């Protein structure tokens, strides 16, 4: 299976529909985080990751370090047919392997994540292993901007740059938010590209909601250093009231960006969100 043929049928709107449907059914949050990485996952699983089958030991690896966006990944994997579509209905259910954060027992989930700052060091080890084994497999790791608060991110960044792990690409979901507020208000993350560049990484930026732009950035010729693609995204992308931090039916809540980090949708909010998707 060629890389470009793997996922021709997975479109962002399908993924968003699945995210909203499952979040509503399970009545859980982390919706905005999932919505912001939809195009990134569609690009990776469309024309970037080279995976003949999910258990091929020499497949490219993908680490979803921002594990709280797992529902978006489950939706992509279901649309690809790697997991049963019906299995999505077990999301957050009893004894389910589809929790809010992903577990590596699922095909397409190479590593279990959920604790921010952990995934990148695993990805660096995975890239080092590929080099030691003489494999040309590539390692991709999706982190968030807020996750860059974690010191372990920078430990891993230093090691990868020192060893010139050019078979490692990080995608940074720069949606500007973290759990309790704007990243700029919590712990300033200005000049992210310069910071990564100073750590010895090649850097690039992309429109995080353009599959084409992301694919081009991820498939661009690689140099001798690890690479980071900073994907400029909007938290809650595709649902207007989430992008603006408005809790429509929970009127006692003030308008603030973090609302849709945690809130589940009411039935009314779900309907508005789904209608918006169809109209977009």
């Amino acid at each position: 299976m060629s890389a470009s043929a793997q996922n021709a049928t997975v479109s962002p709107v399908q993924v968003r529909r699945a995210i909203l449907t499952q979040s509503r059914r399970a009545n859980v949050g982390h919706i905005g985080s999932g919505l912001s990485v939809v195009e990134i996952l569609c690009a990776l699983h469309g024309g970037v990751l080279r995976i003949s089958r999910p258990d091929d030991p020499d497949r490219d690896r993908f680490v979803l370090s921002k594990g709280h966006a797992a529902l978006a990944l489950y939706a992509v994997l279901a649309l690809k047919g790697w997991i049963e579509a019906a299995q999505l209905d077990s999301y957050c259910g009893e004894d389910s392997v589809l929790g809010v954060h992903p577990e590596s027992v699922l095909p397409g989930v190479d590593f279990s994540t959920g604790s921010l700052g952990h995934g990148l060091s695993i990805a660096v080890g995975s890239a080092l292993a590929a080099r030691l084994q003489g494999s040309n497999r590539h390692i991709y790791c999706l982190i968030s901007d807020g996750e860059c608060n974690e010191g372990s991110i920078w430990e891993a960044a230093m090691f990868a740059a020192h060893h010139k792990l050019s078979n490692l690409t990080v995608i940074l979901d720069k949606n500007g938010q973290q759990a309790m507020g704007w990243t700029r208000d919590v712990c300033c993350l200005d000049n992210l590209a310069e910071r990564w560049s100073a750590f010895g990484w090649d850097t690039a930026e992309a429109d995080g909601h353009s599959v084409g732009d992301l694919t081009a950035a991820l498939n661009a010729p690689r140099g001798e250093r690890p690479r980071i693609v900073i994907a400029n995204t909007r938290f809650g992308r595709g649902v207007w009231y989430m992008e603006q931090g408005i809790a429509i039916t929970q009127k006692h809540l003030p308008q603030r960006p973090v609302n849709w980090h945690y809130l589940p949708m009411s039935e009314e909010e779900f309907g508005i969100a789904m209608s918006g998707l169809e109209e977009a």
Partner: protein
Amino acid sequence: MRRAFIDTLCSLAAVDERILLLTGDLGYMAMEPFQERFASRFFNAGIAEQNMIGLATGLAEAGMIPYAYSIATFAALRPFEFIRNGPVLHHLPVRVVGMGAGFEYGTAGPTHHALEDIGVMRTLPGLTVVIPADSHQAATAIRSTYELPGPIYYSLAKDDSKIPELEGRFELGRIQEVREGADVAILAMGSISSEAVAAADELAKEGIRAAVAVVSNFHPDPEEDVARLLRNVPHVITVEAQTLSGGLAAFVATVIASRGLGCRVWPLGVRTPPDGTSGPNRERLRKHGLDRAHVAEAARLALRGVGAC
């Protein structure tokens, strides 16, 4: 024990290319034999223990067997969550190697005293914990466990007091008896076991027959062996250079209580919080009541039924 570790690892690495050695920038005058012989499989991860364990996780998923080395407090405690969510959660053959048991880095101060590592590691059921009592046993243990499919924590001693009667014996899920005796039992863990043996020798001169056994691994726990040993002994002294929460005493007490055995536990371990002092290992053991004299005295008190440890 460092020498036993690196020599054993070199001999394994010579025939198994999956073996890698990572260090958190420690191991001066210890790592060199491996570094020189297997340069392409040696990585100094820098002073970054979280990343070192993360690296090891990624390497192990690809089929390698990485050994991640540092001083025990830095190897086990700083990256605890990376161990938990990495090799344990993924069931991968990462070997975390903690050097310096108890107060062996005594003069380095409390930051370097490994008093909780075994108790903390024991909280992870998916992690095998190996605590050799001397170099000979360390070599046997490292060799016999290196191909286990799951993760392992090795607590290795910096100093090396030999226990000749142990003859390097090691078996997962078993204890190793080094002295027989029916009056009192002494169960010891790690390099401090030599103090327990010396205490038994002192007691023997007084006509007290003390059984001594070394507990050198958890998960699988040596529960049957401990129960068998303690079934007909009225008192057991547990000896560990660890705080009492979660380590040897906690394990032994659970075995006794859950089986309704009549044996009483006299736990010797570290009971007091750091007070700002430090000093050589031997002095630290004496201060905390863990040297041979205190072990022997605990046995005498137990047999006289006096007080509590």
